[in-house]
């Protein structure tokens, strides 16, 4: 069974190679190889995941791996080409391959008219390979290779429409911001090597208690740096919203459902490391929950439909980090899975909306689409309800577990902020729904005429994604705290929880947990109602009709405090401007100073030596007259000088 693990990787890699090499020749059928490669990989991964999750041999409770060959055999330094799969891997395998497959199918329709389709599909396949490598790696170096490869694919796909300047710049931004985090990650791997002399993950985890505590903290912080970059957490969150310049399927697959989860996966995978450094756990929780509320507040005022979803992604990733930080490991992975499905669904729906509106992304120029693209509307509604956390959809279960986990583990501040964020999430999602689908059409009349439902290759994946988005929580999260997902992941996180002295408290439906869920759900309901009252024109709910929107929005936003808040949120709290000032302006000055020093002092010294030598040569050339008598005179004078010296010595003696 373990020999199937490399097959999961080889299939998309082969798809990438074939599509990349031959695609240019067959531009119209280039997607076929890629599609079938991913479908085959999905099938194999499903078999493997089913085997792991059912505890079949050889995986058992703690998983099993396979060592293919020794990657870097050097004296005293060995890196194995080793794959390993346990139930955490299996959860990620399910998310990555099934969303990947659906996004591939969707892209066939979405990219139908793009001449660079073969390039797109080969990049997507390369991404699948890299992400699966990241998930399956049993070695920090191998994980890092996958980590960097997904970064590369992200760069290539954000900048897929590279003639567009904003796309090229967004790609560059994503790549550069990620490098900041990856630097920390690389240092973390080196620190582990320095302390333990191993690059194997399980080996490092097993012996991690031998590391001095200061080093444990340093290693955990450095690894977390990498996670912060890849998962777009504060202060490195600025790249993800800009990454929406890429084609929408890419946003769904890479920047919502899979790659950005790599940071969460890394922290969860390294739970023995983070568990040993409890100080860092507080940092993780704080950064996570702060990012959650920061991104949610920005999502309030964005007008680009994909940007709202992007900030929502940042916010939900913050939730996951908060869950990791408070020690609710299982809840974090549970939320990762459910978020992968409903956020993938939401992005694909937004792609369908954009497709229908003739590449219009500004929600101010949409509205009233619900009758005209019903399949997209209904599936997106499912996604929105799921992310808002309305029971019994997926988001409710996972979000509720995070909040109750925070409360029960004594992180009341995390719970408090998370509670507010839950309400904010519901509000901005229904603002998005209201602006896009409800009310009167504000579409450009020219584009309005061409509004059409997307082809089956696009709506099919939407419907297929809506099913897990609706039912995943109930399916694997029920009954709460003892559903399948908990049984699956318990062996992975048990040692860490035991070491931290935490244990899963019993779930009390008619006690604390029920009360927490009830409070959160009522806040969500209020937020949805408010959003509906503000933005939901013409959609009757319970026989009520909301009246015209603009007057009400205007009367609320007239208050000065609201206006300043609005401005801050719309300007994304000026993070781009701060970065621009700190790193572009001040950093640019510093760089200019260093450049001056290099040019004037260092280059000056080097060039000065050169010039002096050349000038000396020019002068000394005169000595070589080519006249034999001049040389002879030199010899004679030298002879005389020697003779005089000899005589002088003789006289002095």
């Amino acid at each position: 069974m373990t020999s199937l693990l490399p097959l999961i990787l080889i299939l998309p890699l082969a798809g990438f190679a074939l599509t990349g090499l031959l695609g240019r020749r067959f531009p119209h059928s280039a997607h076929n190889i890629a599609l079938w490669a991913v479908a085959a990989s999905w099938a194999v991964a499903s078999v493997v995941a089913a085997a792991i999750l059912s505890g079949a041999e050889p995986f058992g409770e703690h998983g099993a791996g396979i060592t293919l060959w020794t990657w870097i055999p050097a004296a005293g330094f060995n890196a194995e080409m080793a794959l390993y799969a346990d139930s955490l891997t299996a959860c990620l395998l399910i998310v990555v391959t099934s969303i990947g497959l659906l996004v591939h199918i969707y892209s066939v329709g979405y990219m139908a008219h793009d001449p660079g389709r073969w390039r797109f599909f080969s990049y997507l396949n390369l991404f699948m390979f890299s992400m699966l490598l990241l998930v399956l790696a049993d070695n920090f170096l191998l994980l890092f290779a996958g980590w960097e490869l997904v970064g590369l694919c992200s760069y290539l796909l954000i900048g897929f429409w590279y003639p567009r300047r904003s796309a090229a710049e967004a790609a560059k931004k994503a790549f550069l911001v990620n490098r900041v985090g990856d630097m920390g990650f690389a240092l973390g791997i080196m620190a582990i090597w320095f302390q333990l002399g191993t690059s194997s993950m399980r080996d490092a985890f097993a012996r991690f208690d031998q590391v001095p505590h200061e080093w444990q903290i340093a290693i955990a912080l450095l690894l977390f740096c990498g996670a912060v970059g890849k998962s777009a957490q504060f202060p490195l969150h600025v790249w993800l919203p800009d990454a929406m310049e890429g084609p929408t399927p890419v946003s769904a697959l890479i920047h919502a459902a899979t790659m950005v989860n790599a940071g969460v996966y890394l922290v969860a995978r390294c739970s023995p490391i983070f568990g040993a450094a409890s100080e860092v756990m507080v940092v993780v929780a704080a950064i996570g929950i702060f990012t959650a509320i920061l991104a949610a507040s920005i999502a309030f005022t964005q007008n680009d439909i994909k940007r709202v979803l992007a900030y929502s992604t940042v916010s939900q990733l913050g939730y996951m980090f908060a869950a990791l930080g408070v020690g609710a490991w299982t809840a974090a992975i549970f939320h990762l899975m459910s978020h992968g499905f409903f956020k993938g669904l939401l992005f694909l729906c937004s792609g369908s909306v954009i497709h229908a509106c003739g590449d219009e992304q500004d929600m101010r120029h949409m509205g009233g689409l619900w009758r005209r693209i019903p399949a997209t509307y209904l599936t997106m509604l499912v996604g929105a309800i799921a992310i808002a956390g309305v029971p019994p959809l997926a988001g409710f279960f996972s979000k509720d577990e995070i909040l109750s986990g925070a409360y029960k583990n004594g992180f009341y501040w995390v719970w408090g902020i998370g509670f507010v964020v839950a309400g904010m999430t519901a509000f901005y999602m229904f603002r998005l729904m209201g602006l896009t689908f409800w009310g009167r059409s504000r579409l450009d009349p020219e584009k309005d005429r061409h509004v059409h439902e997307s082809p089956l290759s696009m709506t099919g994946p939407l419907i297929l994604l809506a099913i897990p988005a609706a039912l995943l929580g109930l399916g694997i999260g029920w009954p709460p705290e003892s559903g399948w997902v908990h049984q699956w992941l318990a062996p992975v996180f048990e040692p860490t929880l035991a070491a931290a002295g935490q244990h899963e408290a019993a779930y009390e439906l008619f006690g604390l947990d029920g009360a927490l869920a009830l409070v959160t759900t009522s806040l969500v309901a209020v937020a949805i109602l408010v959003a509906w009252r503000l933005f939901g024109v013409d959609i009757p709910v319970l026989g009520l009709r909301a009246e015209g929107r603009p007057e009400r929005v205007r009367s609320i936003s007239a208050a000065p405090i609201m206006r300043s808040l609005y401005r801050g949120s719309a300007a994304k709290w000026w993070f781009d401007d701060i970065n621009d000032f700190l790193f572009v302006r001040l950093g640019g000055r510093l760089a200019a100073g260093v450049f001056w020093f290099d040019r004037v002092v260092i280059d000056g010294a080097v060039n000065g030596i050169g010039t002096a030598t050349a000038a000396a040569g020019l002068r000394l050339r005169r000595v070589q007259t080519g006249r034999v008598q001049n040389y002879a005179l030199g010899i004679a004078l030298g002879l005389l000088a020697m003779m005089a010296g000899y005589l002088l010595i003789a006289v002095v003696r």
Partner: protein
Amino acid sequence: MSGSLDSYLILSGILFAIGAFGFLARRNAISMLMSIELMLNAVNLTIVAFGAFVEPLSGHASVIALLVVAVAAAEATVGLAIVLAIYRNRRTPLVDEYHEMQQ
């Protein structure tokens, strides 16, 4: 004064000085070769004089003098051949017009 070593040395010094001056001052290549011969013979005279007046050197000096004569003959042959070759090429025996070899 004749019959003493000093007179021979002074004579050969004068001869050498004349040769050196000729070599440095004359522009004609043939004259310069002749000046070199003069210097060589001045040295030869010194060697022979030392051989005649210093007892331990008497056997060796004539051998060295013969060697110098042979070398001088070879030098004159090669020198003259070069001068002739350059003369055919340049149509002038004056060395200060040969400085194209400078670069």
